[in-house]
């Protein structure tokens, strides 16, 4: 039962939040509520529903972009020879360590000049800063683990490098693609700084921005905030519950040398 204090520490605050979300707002001053209510959820309204949709769009868009671009590049880095191969891989690793604040100012100016500031599409490219290196890292280590002889066999069988990628390596890589997709989705779903900096219209906010800036007219609406938090957490709770093996494998990929 050594696990109990650990579980209390990590899940206790979440449980309290769930309870708060069903807690009637006027009763928040009491030790415990008399009755539970769904009023906090009902009161979230369309603005927050928009935020959920926005987050979904941005996270899905980032995931699609990074997988589309990252898979072929990772295959090239892992199995082919070309100029700039180590530059790409090393550069991607270095970029994943960049603090996002370092690129906020120029990206803001560029997005503004391109008319993409305050648009959801304008968030997807900046999100590639952290999402694409992650995709490259995961997929490259996956492709590296597939035998070189498989590539050479495909070449001898008449494939161009591109055909070898499409017909042999891509069909084999769906586990790694799934892992990358889940992690990129989570990271994009959770991002705050870029979204806060580049989005100004309330109806275009993503969930983290909406929750960070959630405000009532006079006092903080803690019950509604709790309800919004629960809504933002539920999809991630499902992801972690169903895909925890993949997530753990992805997070710790390359953490230990075989």
């Amino acid at each position: 039962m050594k696990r109990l204090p650990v579980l209390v520490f990590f899940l206790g605050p979440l449980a309290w939040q769930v309870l708060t979300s069903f807690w009637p707002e006027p009763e928040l001053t009491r030790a415990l509520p008399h009755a539970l209510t769904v009023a906090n959820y009902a009161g979230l309204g369309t603005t927050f529903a928009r935020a959920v949709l926005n987050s979904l769009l941005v996270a899905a868009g980032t995931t699609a972009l990074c997988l589309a671009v990252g898979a072929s590049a990772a295959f090239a880095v892992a199995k082919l020879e070309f100029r700039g191969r180590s530059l790409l891989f090393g550069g991607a690793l270095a970029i994943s360590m960049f603090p996002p604040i370092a690129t906020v100012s120029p990206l803001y100016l560029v997005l503004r000049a391109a008319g993409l500031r305050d648009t959801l599409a304008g968030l997807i490219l900046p999100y590639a800063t952290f999402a694409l290196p992650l995709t490259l890292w995961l997929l490259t280590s996956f492709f590296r683990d597939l035998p070189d002889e498989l590539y050479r066999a495909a070449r001898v069988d008449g494939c161009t490098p591109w055909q070898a990628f499409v017909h042999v390596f891509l069909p084999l890589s769906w586990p790694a693609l799934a892992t990358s997709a889940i992690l990129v989705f989570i990271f994009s779903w959770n991002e705050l700084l870029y979204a806060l900096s580049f989005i100004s219209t309330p109806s275009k906010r993503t969930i983290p921005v909406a929750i960070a800036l959630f405000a009532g007219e006079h006092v903080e609406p803690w019950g509604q905030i709790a309800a919004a938090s629960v809504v933002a957490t539920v999809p991630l709770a499902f992801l972690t519950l169903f895909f925890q093996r993949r997530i753990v494998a992805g997070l710790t990929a390359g953490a230990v040398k075989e």
Partner: protein
Amino acid sequence: MASVSLDRVRKAFPGAPDAVHELSLEIADGEFVSLVGPSGCGKSTTLNLIAGLDQPTSGSIRIDGKPVEGLEPGERDIAMVFQSYALYPHKDVRGNLAFPLEVARLERSEIDKRIAETAELLGISKLLSRKPRELSGGQRQRVALGRALVRKPRVYLLDEPLSNLDAGLRAQMRAELRRLHQKLRATFIYVTHDQAEAMTLSDRIALLRAGELQQTGTPREIYQRPANRFVAEFFGTPRINVVPARVLGLEGDDLVGIRPEQIELLSERASGVLEATVEEAEMTGAELWVTLSLGGESMVARAPSDFAAHPGGRVWIRFPADRVLRFEQSGRTLSQTRL
């Protein structure tokens, strides 16, 4: 079918000695040639160069008399069997066999016909809808072979195809490869580090060491007239004995080599024999490998299994003088003069 010729082929990787150095080799149409050598000798690199998976730094390669420079691997009319078999894990056996033909855009009916023929030939007709992971090692090996055969290429390149099989299966596949070669009459280039495998399979052997060709010849030539000490020591189990000439009572300061099976052991003194002490006797079943001490050197001789040899005991040896190989002092080249 086609000949393969390599003309002063060189392959250099940055910051390392040449992986293949000025290699010239003529392989005739329909010949079974083995490239042999210890690991890192350049044999696999040579195979990759012929396949077009790697480009030579200099020199030229011709298949059927035509230079293949700039041709993609798929355009060279070759097929290759890999050590790990490299079967496509997501395709079933039929898909694996069909893949090279699909890439080459053959007619569906032709593809089906060839798959049926090949599966029949290799006895894998019942496995066509299985995935590679559902096959045993020997079955995978056959599918890998089949994927090469369906293409009816002019040249087969085989990169240590038997080294992942257990001993029994390996002997069986060896015989099957030999049969297949005779039936197809195609050119086979076979890479192995196993000298016994090269001996039993090949029409001709090319021995490489550190990227340099040491000798080419039939198995018999290579075994009986090795070009240098390295070649002499590479072939034969147990290894050839190399000792100073005086140990065998011969003239000169050179090193000489005598194979273990050429040494005759006697339990009594006779005329023209040398005296030796038994250090150790290893029973292998059919025969006895006896380690002898003679003039401060160790030598191994093969004796019938009932020969009585006890460590510390005394024996006498004799050998046919014309079977002694004489190496130059450098140890590298063999003088042509026979004793």
